[in-house]
């Protein structure tokens, strides 16, 4: 019998993941045989220089992009072979997203943005879900903003709405792509603390892609990527340790030259 990802306490898993763009001599390898598991309640930061494959990895794990080879699971469901319609439903029900910018639907107010994944499923949140969403709205300080449009909110407020939406459907996994990229340092700290709390308090699996060593220092686990491979897989790091980890790549390269 095959081992299920959940038997290992994993909410997401990839094995031997390869992604190449283009063909022949122009082919670029974005991911080069990566295997990785994300545990329940774990806040994981993926770091690496531009072009290291960290965004591609996140997109494939989230069902936004298809791998060239390898297998991907969300929970116990393998998503590698799913068609576009099935993948869409997986994203809607099992994955939450927080992007760097342009996170919210501009024509919907805050409340409609938060419940948008439910609306896409053609249903209203049930009583339990409603209570959960209400508690999120309160703890994120959005209660008196429910009727506001995204354009009427500050960057930090918009990011909090995105977090409320990402956690609202209690997905297996939340992906955050440079969630603090557009925020000032104080708001960044708030957003990172919220993500960390979501993992610690609600057992939410969170994967955050970031350039920022300070952001990575809030995570339980820091994965460093380089040239489409995992270059390091560490536990909690301070901001300076995370920074040194990234810089070590540069010195390795300098040494290799």
């Amino acid at each position, binding site marked *: 019998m095959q081992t299920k990802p959940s038997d290992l306490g994993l909410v997401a898993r990839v094995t031997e993941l390869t992604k190449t763009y283009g063909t022949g001599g122009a082919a670029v390898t974005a991911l080069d045989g990566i295997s990785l598991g994300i545990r329940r309640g774990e806040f994981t930061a993926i770091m690496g220089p531009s072009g290291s494959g960290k965004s591609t990895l996140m*997109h494939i794990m*989230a069902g*936004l*992009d298809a791998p060239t080879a390898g297998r991907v699971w969300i929970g116990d469901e393998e998503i590698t072979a799913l068609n*576009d*319609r099935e993948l*869409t*439903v997986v*994203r*809607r*029900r099992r994955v939450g*997203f927080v*992007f760097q*910018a*342009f*996170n919210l*639907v*501009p*024509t*919907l107010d805050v409340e*409609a943005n938060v419940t*948008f*994944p439910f*609306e*896409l*499923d*053609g249903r209203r949140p049930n009583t339990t879900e409603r209570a959960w969403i209400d508690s999120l709205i309160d703890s994120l300080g959005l209660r008196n903003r429910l009727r506001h*449009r*995204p*354009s009427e909110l500050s*960057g930090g407020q918009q990011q909090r709405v995105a977090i409320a*939406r990402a956690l609202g459907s209690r997905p297996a996994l939340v992906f955050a792509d440079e969630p603090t990229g*557009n925020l000032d340092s104080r708001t960044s700290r708030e957003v990172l603390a919220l993500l960390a709390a979501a993992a610690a308090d609600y057992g939410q699996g969170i994967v955050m892609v970031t350039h920022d060593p300070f952001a990575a220092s809030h995570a339980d686990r820091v994965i460093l990527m380089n040239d489409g491979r995992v270059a390091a897989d560490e536990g909690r790091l301070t901001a300076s340790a995370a920074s040194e980890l990234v810089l070590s790549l540069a010195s390795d390269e300098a040494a290799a030259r």
Partner: protein
Amino acid sequence: MRTLLRGHAATVLVAALAAGFGVTLLGLIRILVIATEAAIAGAALDQAPLVLVIVAYVFLAIAIYVAAIVTTNTVATIVAGRVREIALVRLLGASAARERARLAKEGLTAGAVGAVIGVAASWALLAAFVLVGEATTLLPPGQTYAFLVPDMVVPIVAVVLTTWLAAWVGSRRVLGVTPIEALGAAVPSDAAHPAGSRARATLAAVLGGGGALLLALGALLGQASPLGVFVGIAGGITSFTGLMIGAPFVIPALLALVGRALGRDAAAVLGVRNALRHPDRSARAAIALVIGVSLVTMFVVAGMTANAIMYQRMEDHWGTTAPLDPAFAMAMGVLGILVGFSAVIAAVGLVNTLTVGVLQRTREFGLVRALGLSRGQLRRTISVEAVQLAVTAILVGFAVGIAYGWAGAEAMFGSFQVFGPVPPVIPWWLVAGIVGVAALLALVGSLVPARRALRIVPVEALAAE
């Protein structure tokens, strides 16, 4: 040339349609004059009957006016899509006035290119008509049907100039682009409020209400004398002006009403909300179509109602039941089609507004696709938007047209009535035509943009700046 015409395909097409329409009308009148001279020995018309020429110019003016509204909208949409680019050149030191002049010049070029294409197509069409006409002896043989007349310069020049002017008006938003928009947030700022003021709303209400009263008064006076039609015409023009000025207030409200009937699911809501996001744009796109549809409806309903009044009178006098003259109905149909040409131009504008709207929302569609909107749902979002716009515009045009047509008939022929006012006559073929046009527009208006939207790959859209 290619870069100069970037994004102006709709403007070129609209200018071609308007110029081609005008030239074709004048050419047809010329051919008609030659044919009449040949058919009736001794008839030396030489000049076209004045009334025909006037009618042709009225139709042309309506078509050019609608074309100008459409082009204003097209250019406004282009500006919205180029905000970051404009902001960048502003940042590098270009003045807003220069950028605006550049857009107006693009409009001028597009207008000129369109006019040339339209005229060429029109001449080809006229030549083909003459060939076929001679072959089928529809046109008396033995004549030289030289359809080129110097007047043809008028539609050409008028189209080029109005396109230029419309591009100038439509590019007003350039002045509001700040250099800082080239940096900073990638989120496009939404103009939440219609470019209107309380004064504008008041003016629209006064003109609309006052005009409607005058129109009713005209119909009432018409019960005593055909001169009531002059009061009616004044009321019609006044109230329609009110509708045009008030469009940014009235149309979005109606769009919301129609939108609500189209569904409450997430996909429908996304589509419905979008039409309300740029009230000015939606209002202009709709009002261009309202003009075309209301004019057609007005002519047909007025003609058919007047016809009914006259037949009622004949029956009363001679006691015979006269059948409706099919030739009259056909003439109404032809007239309706000529008037309705502006509806074709408006339709081009409507489809363009929807298509460009999709292109400008690439990131938004990428986001909602990532969040779990299926391709089927995306298709629904886009068709809801098209149906909402087409149905609203056509319903408004139809209702307004019936009111005008009936009031016009009563104002002019009311005094001939035997048994008091007759109800408006709305022929089934008009209703069928309107429903057909609405369905066709909604279909084309969803299919063309949907093809673009379904090609959006969420990952690429989210990465796009």
